[in-house]
């Protein structure tokens, strides 16, 4: 098992004919938490979309290796099976599909891909119960339709619940703090912290430093106009907080 989990080189990508990422390079090792900070429109969400394989985003140059394999060649579902997880900035509502059925389909597809038998109903229920407790969700939660009519906080907790169920190797948290009150933020952050292991890594994408008080990053990147303009430690977060993004030259 290599120490390097994700290696992004010269990544250029965009949507339709508009280039948003204009050459992004960075490397993540197992056990690390990387924060990506940047002003609105810098390309933070594009980066997360490209890593998760969103079909409407096109990569025009560069490479992304995940655990030594070509990530960009994989379909979104394959990336999930390999251990990539994106916590959506705007989790999608799926009326008519219960969380229970949704998770069952997700878990069993992944097990099938790994050559494992489907989970027995009792095993699945026990796992659901354990992970729901993890994000302080009550029993009825499993019967609700995915994100349908959820509050902002419930949607984000549902993301972390799914993350706990799928036990990803690389988690990408896209603006998980947006629209959260302090209590929800704490539940989400605690969830993420408890899922940290020496073998896994996370990318925390955020506009503000608030979330990074709870999830402490090892490496901080500042993304501006599609490029990483600074990389450092927690001191960068302080600099942005006191002097703003304009103080970091691009």
């Amino acid at each position, binding site marked *: 098992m290599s120490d390097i989990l994700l290696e992004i080189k010269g990544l250029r990508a965009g949507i339709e004919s508009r280039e948003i990422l204009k050459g992004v390079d960075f490397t993540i090792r197992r056990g690390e938490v990387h924060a990506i900070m940047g002003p609105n429109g810098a390309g933070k969400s594009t980066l997360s979309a490209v890593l*998760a*394989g*969103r*079909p*409407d985003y096109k990569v025009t140059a560069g490479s992304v290796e995940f655990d030594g394999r070509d990530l960009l060649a994989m*379909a*979104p*579902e394959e*990336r*999930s*099976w390999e251990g990539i*997880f*994106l916590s*959506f900035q705007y*989790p*999608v*509502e*799926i*009326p*008519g*599909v219960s969380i229970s*059925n*949704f*998770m069952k*389909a*997700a*878990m069993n*597809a*992944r097990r099938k*891909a790994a050559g494992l038998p489907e989970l027995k109903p009792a095993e699945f229920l026990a796992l659901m119960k354990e992970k729901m407790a993890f994000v302080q969700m009550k029993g009825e939660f499993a019967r609700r339709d995915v994100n349908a009519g959820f509050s902002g906080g419930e949607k984000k907790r549902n993301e972390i619940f*799914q993350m706990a169920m*799928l036990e990803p190797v690389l988690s990408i948290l896209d603006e998980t703090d947006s629209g959260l009150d302090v209590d929800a933020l704490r539940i989400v952050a605690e969830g993420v912290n408890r899922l940290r292991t020496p073998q896994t890594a996370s990318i925390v994408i955020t506009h503000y430093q608030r979330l990074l008080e709870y999830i402490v990053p090892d490496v901080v990147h500042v993304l501006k106009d599609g490029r990483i303009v600074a990389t450092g430690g927690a001191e960068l977060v302080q600099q942005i907080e006191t002097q703003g993004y304009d103080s970091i030259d691009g």
Partner: protein
Amino acid sequence: MDSVYVIGRDAVPSLVRLGSGESLKMTLVVPEGESCKLELEIELDGPGASLDLAGASMSGGSEQVNIKVTVRHNVPGCRSEQLFKSVAGGQARVSFDGLVYVAHGAVRTVAHQQNHSLLLSGEALVESRPQLEIYADDVECSHGATTGYLNPEELFYMRSRGIPEDVARAMQVEAFLAPVLSRAGEGGQL
């Protein structure tokens, strides 16, 4: 009365009359591969009669599905609810003609009609022709029709959790039809 008709298996009556205080819950299911030309007329003849009608069709090849429903509110104080959902893929042709007729003097009528279609291919065609003919005052009548494709945001969300694209699509179709198909399942007749 609660009845489920599966086209190709059951004969659907062409005319149903509901008398005073009678209620009917009726579900029509057009399974994949089945072409049909259905004409159904329901006459609400007695005060307080109530109709709860739903239909679902699934067509993925070259089926031709034509459904024509006429609901006549002939007397005061009757209620009718209609929900029709169609899924059309391949080169299927699906049409829904729904007429709600409220006769002169049929006051306090409540009639709602919904027709929603999901297109799975660019070559499938659905036509929805809802009609209201109202000759009475003091009625509550509405109809709505929508046609759309599978939601790409939902598909990507599901795929990002490891659900393969074909399974994700099937789950969305199932969710779309569930409000009708769950009625058919309840009666244990499907």
